[in-house]
């Protein structure tokens, strides 16, 4: 596997490189150049769960549309500066947004729920009956 004996030093090099990649992965999370809001789509067996980090927003600020297996999350975050205040540093993004995600399984749009808590939107959509995992009984052949 390795062209020459793996010394301790080189082992650490490999670990360092791994850690650098992990660091980048973490940094990406809050990198302003990455689309806002940060979103994950997860196949959770019976459901598909979509989660979006939308600090500052509530249910009424977000619009969800499900069409042909594509979920669209849209809305607007407005950042207001109170009267008499001056902006000294601005890192937070405030804008209209719309992001679409092809869901990883066929879903039943009638069975979807959504909530926003502490600035995290969670959309839970039931999979269509034929897309749900099924347990297959294994029988011993006599």
């Amino acid at each position, binding site marked *: 596997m390795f062209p020459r004996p793996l010394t301790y030093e080189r082992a650490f090099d490999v670990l360092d490189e791994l850690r650098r990649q*992990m660091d980048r992965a973490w940094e990406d999370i809050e990198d302003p150049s990455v689309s806002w809001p940060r979103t994950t789509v997860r196949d959770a067996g019976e459901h598909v769960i979509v989660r979006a*980090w939308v600090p500052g927003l509530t249910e009424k600020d977000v619009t969800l549309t499900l069409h042909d297996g594509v979920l669209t999350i849209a809305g607007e975050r407005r*950042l207001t500066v109170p009267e*008499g*205040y001056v902006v000294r540093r601005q890192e937070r993004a405030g804008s209209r947004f719309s992001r679409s995600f092809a869901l990883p399984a066929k879903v039943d749009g009638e069975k979807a729920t959504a909530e926003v808590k*502490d*600035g995290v939107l969670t959309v839970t959509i039931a999979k269509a009956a034929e897309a749900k995992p099924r347990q297959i009984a294994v029988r011993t052949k006599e």
Partner: protein
Amino acid sequence: MSKDAKNDKSWVRPRVDVLEGEAELMLVADMAGVGREAIDVRFDDGDLTITGGRFWRTFAMPDGVDPEKIAAEYTNGVLTVHVPKAAAKRARRIDVRAG
């Protein structure tokens, strides 16, 4: 938590806006999904540190703030910290009276 542990890059720097008003500095940090009870705000030797979940960030505060009166609130995943200026540092409007 030791200072070394804080250097571990698995911490995420929250995005922060800083606004200045006549009587205070206001820090606004995006910290979604943390929950109010998990948030820690402290002022130590001129540094304001906010921690919660994976989020961690420190700001050096200018001289002339009043650490006793720092207040913070967490709403919809956004942490707002109010750092009042010490009375002597506030801009004052001086009335000009007729002589």
